[in-house]
């Protein structure tokens, strides 16, 4: 049942939403179908196609409720075909409709993320609230507001028009990326990661890649997440302490994820590299280095230059500084860091101070490095990262 929930939810809800023409109604019907399945499957066994079974039950209920509402309001009965098991064709397009609706740019990005986790991944408001450290009532209100806007403002349950498609795909990929990164390094708390959120992000990336086979960026995003996820087990040691990539045991890196990611990148090479294409290429350079010393930093620096030229952002600029410091040395890195120091977007960004600290440490300017570690600590809310910074401080003292 749990498996049917995570693997079939998006299928079932997406198809039901098309029939129900109402997201709330669709959600109720799908939840109802899962409840029925709980009883039915125990008695009769799991059907050959659980998703089709659930979709049939949920859409039938949706049609019934809609017909009832229509009779009550308009006295116009709908002709309801009797769906039998396996007769409902579940087009993957329905999931695409659902994803594009959840990630509509007319919705605030935090609402897009919440809706996607709720409607596409089937997470409860409580689970989403916990993942983003807000009160459940706040998350519930955010989701309700977003659904209300969808129906009131006429956000259609459809695949965007061709002219809008690139922009709309970007919005979807951004949401998937943000879900993953929120899981990859938790903004707060005792654990470095939120593995469940990272897994949902990866699942979403796989789904979007499947639904948008012609999008190079969708392939690139999946590759990026696979290559990042591959290093997951090596990021924390047995004692729960953060391990920088420099010190990671690369034999722990997940080879099968790396192979899958690299294959996707090679497949995507023909496309003009987009934002995620370049980020994936950077991750690939790391993945292909057998040892830290083998890392091709010139290649990485070149990729960051391309990234920065087309999608300038202070965070990318900061990462470029790190690459530069391995090509031209830590002093050159410190020099380049100066222009970023006053960027208001980075004012409370802990990685700005920690990058400066690392560069100062590598040039042997320990007193200044210690001050920078202290500064980074002040902005870090993740306990594992804070512990790492404290260790660095102690080691130098």
């Amino acid at each position: 049942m749990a498996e049917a929930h995570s693997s079939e939810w998006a299928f079932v809800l997406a198809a039901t939403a098309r029939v129900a023409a109402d997201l709330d109604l669709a959600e109720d019907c799908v939840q109802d179908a899962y409840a029925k399945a709980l009883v039915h499957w125990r008695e009769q066994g799991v059907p050959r196609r659980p998703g089709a079974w659930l979709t049939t039950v949920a859409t039938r209920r949706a049609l019934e409720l809609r017909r009832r509402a229509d009779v009550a309001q308009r006295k116009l009965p709908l002709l309801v075909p009797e769906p039998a098991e396996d007769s409902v064709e579940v087009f993957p397009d329905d999931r695409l409709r659902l994803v594009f609706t959840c990630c509509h740019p007319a919705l605030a990005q935090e609402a897009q993320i919440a809706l996607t986790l709720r409607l596409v991944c089937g997470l409860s408001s409580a689970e989403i609230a916990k993942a983003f450290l807000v009160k459940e009532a706040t998350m519930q209100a955010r989701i309700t507001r977003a659904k209300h806007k969808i129906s009131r403002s006429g956000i259609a349950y459809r695949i965007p028009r061709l002219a809008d498609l690139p922009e709309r795909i970007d919005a979807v990929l951004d949401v998937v990326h943000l879900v993953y990164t929120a899981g990859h390094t938790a903004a707060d708390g005792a654990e470095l990661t939120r593995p469940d959120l990272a897994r949902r992000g990866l699942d979403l990336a796989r789904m979007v890649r499947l639904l948008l086979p012609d999008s190079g960026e969708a392939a690139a995003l999946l590759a990026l997440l696979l290559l990042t996820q591959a290093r997951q087990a090596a990021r924390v040691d047995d004692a729960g302490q953060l391990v920088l990539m420099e010190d990671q045991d690369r034999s722990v890196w997940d080879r099968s994820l790396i192979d899958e990611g690299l294959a996707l990148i090679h497949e995507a090479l023909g496309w003009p590299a987009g934002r995620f294409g370049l980020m994936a290429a950077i991750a690939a350079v790391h993945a292909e280095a057998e040892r830290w010393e083998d890392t091709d930093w010139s290649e990485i620096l070149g990729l960051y230059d391309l990234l920065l030229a087309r999608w300038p952002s202070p965070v990318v600029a900061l990462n470029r500084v790190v690459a530069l410091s391995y090509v031209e040395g830590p002093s050159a890195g410190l020099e380049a860091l100066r222009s970023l120091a006053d960027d208001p977007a980075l004012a409370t960004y802990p990685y700005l101070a920690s990058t400066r600290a690392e560069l100062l440490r590598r040039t042997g300017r320990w007193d200044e490095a210690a001050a920078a570690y202290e500064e980074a600590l002040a902005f870090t809310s993740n306990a594992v990262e804070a512990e790492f910074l404290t260790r660095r401080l102690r080691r130098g003292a």
Partner: protein
Amino acid sequence: MGKYLVMIYDNEAAWAAADPSVAETNHKNHQAFAEANGAALRGGAQLGESSTATSIRSDGSGGFVVTDGTFVETKEVMGGYYLIEAADLDEALSIAKQVPSPMGGVEVRPIINGG
């Protein structure tokens, strides 16, 4: 199909500082917009500048307070509008993107009742 109000918000100071030819071009652009989107247009108008606005608030006890000026003080004020009909928000947005608004932008709101 639904109806949407496209409200044009402008920085009046920018308009006041602009060369008259900018307003002339803008006028022509609006005519071109109206011609190109005639099928979707249900109405539209240019409003007098905000200095001509009068606001009325009910005083809570059956009376009114009438004041000079716009309802909300903002740098960008509503200078005109179009009422359009569109299949969905995406279509409404694609029409709204064509509305000339060189000194600001537009806000799109669905019409819920009437219109």
